[in-house]
């Protein structure tokens, strides 16, 4: 396990999983299939990829009043990501994760990650996140969430 760096904790949690680095923002409201976690948005360059069980790295979210609810619902159903790394801190994503933690005791870490660290993130790489925001690279392993 190799420490890559530390993110700013927006919602605390512990998780590990394979990274999916999104080039563009994703909407948690209509941007993906709520049954499977596959990206549906026709305008998204990674349409067809699944966010399920992944550590999702993205620049920010696409705004909509429904974003926090879409996020909390995806966590409840287990079709959402196990962790979210944001380049720009985002209120909607953070609120969705905080509400899911309260309602379902499912703690999805949401971190704001400094630019140099964000630039190092590569799709497929398996990483681990701890509740204080440390991000480490793993050699292998499966996706897990939970404190």
């Amino acid at each position: 396990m190799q420490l890559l760096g530390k993110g700013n904790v927006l919602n605390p949690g512990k998780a590990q999983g394979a990274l999916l680095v999104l080039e563009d923002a994703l909407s948690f409201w209509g941007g993906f299939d709520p049954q499977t976690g596959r990206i549906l948005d026709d305008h998204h360059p990674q349409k067809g990829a699944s966010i399920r069980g992944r550590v999702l790295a993205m620049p920010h979210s696409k705004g909509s009043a429904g974003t926090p609810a879409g996020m909390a619902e995806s966590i409840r159903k287990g079709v959402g990501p196990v962790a979210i790394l944001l380049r720009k801190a985002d209120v909607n994503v953070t609120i969705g994760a905080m509400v899911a933690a309260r309602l379902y005791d499912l703690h999805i870490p949401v971190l704001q990650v400094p630019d140099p660290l964000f630039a190092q993130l590569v799709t497929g790489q398996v990483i681990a996140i701890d509740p204080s925001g440390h991000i480490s690279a793993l050699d292998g392993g499966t996706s897990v969430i939970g404190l």
Partner: protein
Amino acid sequence: MSAVDLSAAERADLNGENGPLRQFAMSLVVRAAEIWRAPCLIKAGFAHIDACHFNGQAHLDFARMLACGNVRFPIPVWTNTLPVSLLQNDGRADSDPDFVSGAREVAEIYRKLGCRPVWTCAPYQLPGGPGFGDQIIGSESNAVAFYNSVVGARTQKYGDFLDVCCALTGRVPCAGLHRDDGRRGQVEFDLTGLSDALLRHEETCPLIGHIMGERAGSSIPVLRGLPGDTPQDNLKAMAAAAGASGGVAMFHAIGVTPEAPDAEAAYQGGTPEQVHRIIADDLTVAKSSLSTVTSGQLDMVALGTPHFSIHEFRRLAQAIEGQRIHADLRFYVSTARFVADAARAEGLLDPIERAGVEILTDTCTYFSPAVRACRGRVMTNSAKWAFYAPGMLPVKVCFAGLEDCVASAIRGEITLTNRA
């Protein structure tokens, strides 16, 4: 993250002295304040919440948590549209009974919690709402843009759950559009190249709104050249279009909106970062991008996104009186129950309903199960409807003004005669 300076009362909430739900609510408000780098929280006196709009179990579980906590809102809270109507029975073959019952339970919980059950996306059309300079909590994108721009009330765009948490605590982060410096105009849209006739055409304001959203993103546009007597309905359509195609939460129109008596005020003494000169061709391009069909047999007309106003009912009654829509199509007008009652009292609904038009309250045509069965070609005077619906419903859309929608509904065929 930046530290937020809290008052003794706010700290008491955060420490759990007023119960676990107030503590949870305050923790979300403070987290939002940290992310937006607000130095402190400020009091808000009114909320229009979207969390009452059921769209999955999380909405219901959140509402049940509030119901169990026996909480009360310290400020007036009005409710956004629902995905179903509470007045009309919209249990059509394709509407999932679990969805309808979930939506009704969420609505009932917020009503019992003391919210004013207005169920409208255009709360600013009802009396008794906030006024100029008031700090408020808005969520629905068109209402946020209208309150900030046209009313001069102040709100950020609050997503689901944070809207309720702010309302429960009566506090918002002192950030963004709540602050003077967050309301400075940034990007100019110069309309002085458009003719007066074009500027006064019903289709023009929503098309300009659509263009503003596409080009300004989430920055604050300033319109130069909009007529000073532009009707409120047109500004409503503009706010809705800009909130749909982009993230516009506020715009200024020089000589029209209250914080822009002149350019100096709109830019707070500064200058625009960018100027877009709008010409008639830009409107033509926007119009064609909002219409996936412009001819052929018509299957439905959808008016009232955002909810129809009393003035729009007067226009519709005048345009349709004594006529009858084609038997093969449905014609819906979405509105608030309060506005529907006022229109009925004024005798406006009789000629409209006699013509075959259906009035849909509490909800909107593009997500109500009443309309889910809708297929084929739909006409609307809403750029917001035209922008969203083709992605949500199996329909082709034609954007046009109210009179063209009426004429087409009577013929049963898309007929575009009253073009700008």
